[in-house]
């Protein structure tokens, strides 16, 4: 498992290749990349500042990855999250999962990003025409994470 919190940008292609190269048993790599949007709640966003809690953030992500590994067949997983000042169009987060088959890779990847949004200690502050504002948790993000609490279909 690879967990990185950094200010620098990342190369999604290189990360996907790294996951695929882990073993010849990899049949599928699924990845998610999040970007900074130029608008939020009908307001223009000039830039985004991302703060985190060093040490706790990595621990929370580690826990989420371990849960995903217990639930699906995960051969390898990567989470990269950027912090600091970001502008619209820039990449914020990369989640990648390598599995023998696509079903596990899709589900584990979605599980990781859903819980990363509700449990990992990151906070976003937007720069808008009206000044700075800290984002509040979206109910839709909470609902997305909560869906994983339902019993799995057999």
């Amino acid at each position, binding site marked *: 498992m690879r967990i990185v919190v950094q200010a620098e940008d990342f190369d999604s292609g290189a990360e996907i290749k790294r996951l695929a190269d882990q073993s010849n048993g990899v049949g599928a790599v699924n990845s998610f990349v*999040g970007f900074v949007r130029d608008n939020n709640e009908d307001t223009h966003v000039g830039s985004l500042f*991302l*703060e*985190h*809690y060093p*040490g*706790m953030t990595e*621990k929370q992500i580690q826990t989420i990855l371990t849960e995903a590994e217990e639930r699906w067949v995960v051969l390898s997983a990567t989470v990269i*999250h950027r912090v600091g000042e970001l502008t619209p169009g820039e990449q*914020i*987060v990369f989640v990648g999962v390598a599995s023998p088959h696509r079903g596990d890779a899709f589900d584990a990847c979605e599980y990781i*990003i859903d819980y*990363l*949004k*509700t*449990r*990992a*200690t*990151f*906070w*976003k*502050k937007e720069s808008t025409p009206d000044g700075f504002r*800290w*984002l*509040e*948790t979206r109910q839709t*993000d909470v609902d997305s994470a909560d869906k994983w609490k339902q019993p799995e279909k057999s």
Partner: protein
Amino acid sequence: MMKIKIVLFASLRETLDSDGFDFEVAVGSTVASVVGALGAGRGEMWARVLGEDNVLTAVNHTMVNAPQVLAAGDELAFFPPVTGG
């Protein structure tokens, strides 16, 4: 008395104008009693901000609730709901 470390993040850090400090508390203190002591020692603003329903707490990087008992050297963090991803 024992010494713990208080750390604050995001909107709480800005509103209270502090990213953290060492704090002397009574042996056997809980998260709730430390919130009370911070409110008593640092003013009404601290009591109000840390008393808000959505404030989250962690001890040594693990999420905890108000009844959690603290030990000397613990790092007690206060922060708002997370918004990463």
